[in-house]
């Protein structure tokens, strides 16, 4: 259930940015969530609505931009797609993989007024 904490972090950012960027209301929030970020998107959506209640982002739409997982395969020496942290390299079957993409969770942009 750390999705709740993540949403509290998002709200804090939205409130800080409201002063800096001079807006009163948030209509839409775009988040980039990597496949390997350990975030359960449905839980995040649920928490988002609960946490934003009564705030400047109450009723805001949450748009998720999914990013694919990627890792560097040491034996092959190339980047390969992975869906899970325990996936083998799709080319050589090795687990000598170093995740280098799809582990991020970022607030990308906002639609505000």
């Amino acid at each position, binding site marked *: 259930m750390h999705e709740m904490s993540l949403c509290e*972090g998002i709200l*804090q*950012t939205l409130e800080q940015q409201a002063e800096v960027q*001079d807006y009163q209301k948030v209509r839409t929030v775009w988040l980039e969530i990597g496949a390997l970020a350990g975030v359960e998107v449905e839980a995040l959506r649920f928490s988002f609505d609960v946490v934003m209640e009564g705030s400047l982002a109450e009723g805001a739409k949450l748009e998720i931009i999914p990013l694919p997982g990627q890792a560097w395969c040491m034996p092959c020496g190339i980047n390969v797609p992975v869906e899970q942290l325990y996936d083998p390299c799709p080319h050589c079957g090795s687990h000598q993989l170093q*995740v280098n993409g799809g582990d991020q969770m*970022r607030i990308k942009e906002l639609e505000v007024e």
Partner: protein
Amino acid sequence: MCGICGCGEGPVHLDEHEHSHEHEHEHDHNHTHSHAAVHSHAPGLSQVRMVQIEQDILAKNNQYAHENRRYFSAHGLLVLNLVSSPGSGKTTLLTETILRLKDEIGIAVIEGDQQTARDAERILSTGVQAIQINTGKGCHLDAHRVGHALEKLQLQDHSVLFIENVGNLVCPSAFDLGEAHKVVVLSVTEGEDKPIKYPDMFHAADLMILNKTDLLPHLDFNVEECIQYAKQVNPRIKILSLSAKTGEGMDNWLAWLKAELQLQLIAYA
């Protein structure tokens, strides 16, 4: 109030640590854009606009973690974040470790649990400093709460600080506390497939301790398979097998600890 942990202690800590970071993300250029919209009185023209943020959701926690890490490195402290499911034997491992090392090395413990101070009391009975953080409904420790706990501990330089996280193999993996290493404790009474069932945690850890090995004769737990699963998720992970109860394998763990502390001291000097 602090938005990360909701502990209500935020403002004090924020004043201390936050201001240097506050301005990194501010971009004034959007103001002109927004004023243009506000001052246009054309009917039907909306004031709705887009704002680029590009900020990590965990940015706040990571800032606190960065502050903690800077403090640890300035004082030559080896800080380990112990993570596991509930009942893996983290607290017993700690009390046994402390009893063996406390005459040699300074040790302190931060205990995280949803409720009660029972674990901190167990640590205190060994004669070292311990502080309990109750997370209430929270499922993990965050760097902000650890920062507050640090204010209450009198840590001596060149010592070891153990942070025993909330028993949970999921959430604590995402939160950097400023530690040198996450150490995941897995007991052989759990399934050997835990590393692939909870890959985030085993991916985030640098060391896995396979605990309660004295029970192996009574169980079907396949050690080789478990190690293979852990390496599958994290090819860099180091693995130690031990029984905190009988003491078997404890020497390797103590040797690892001393070596890591030595590395901290080299970085410190």
